[in-house]
């Protein structure tokens, strides 16, 4: 079984950039500063290269005023499991 954590961070952030008046508040840099990480970490999360800790996930959810599940989702890849068995 291969487990995959997917996220909608980039999508949500781009939505914020479009909707808010001050779009500079939702750049990768400013978001990173607010949650206490570097811009590279935000980039890595958006690209799906890095899964954040629970603490950072909560901070991001707080920033976007959504629940963690609305940003991150856990998926079990059953097909991957079947192909591994065969």
């Amino acid at each position: 079984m291969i487990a995959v954590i997917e996220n909608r961070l980039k999508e949500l952030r781009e939505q914020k950039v479009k909707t808010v008046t001050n779009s500079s508040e939702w750049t990768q840099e400013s978001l990173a500063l607010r949650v206490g990480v570097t811009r590279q970490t935000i980039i890595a999360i958006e690209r799906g290269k890095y899964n954040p800790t629970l603490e950072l996930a909560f901070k991001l959810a707080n920033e976007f005023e959504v629940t963690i599940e609305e940003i991150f989702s856990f998926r079990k890849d059953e097909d991957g499991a079947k192909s591994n068995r065969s």
Partner: protein
Amino acid sequence: MRRYSALGRMKMEQNQIAANVCVASIGIVFILVMLWFRPDKTLEMLIPVSTSLVLVILISRRTKFDERKDERTIQLMMLGARNAFFFLLFAMPMLATFSFTGIILIDAAGALMLLYLIAIGIAWISFLYYYWQ
């Protein structure tokens, strides 16, 4: 300015600085012990002693790198440390084998073996320290 100055993060950095200072102090104590046993080598020991003191000053201060350190950086550093440790784990016994077969001088291999044992000790002591925190 950062909105989140989490107490846990600050505590972790303090612990890390304390651990670094401890390791550097062990090094200095080792040099001092060597000076005690071999006072005739004082001049030769001047370079390692002064280097150690500079290192202690450097690591006990926050650097630019520390400011840019976050959870992902720390995770990657841990992966790097794991790689270095596994290198030691295999390289040192190999070195010991070379020394037994006479390819490498016994003294040099012995010193490196001592470093290997100290590295294992530090890894375990650090682990237990953070585990019980």
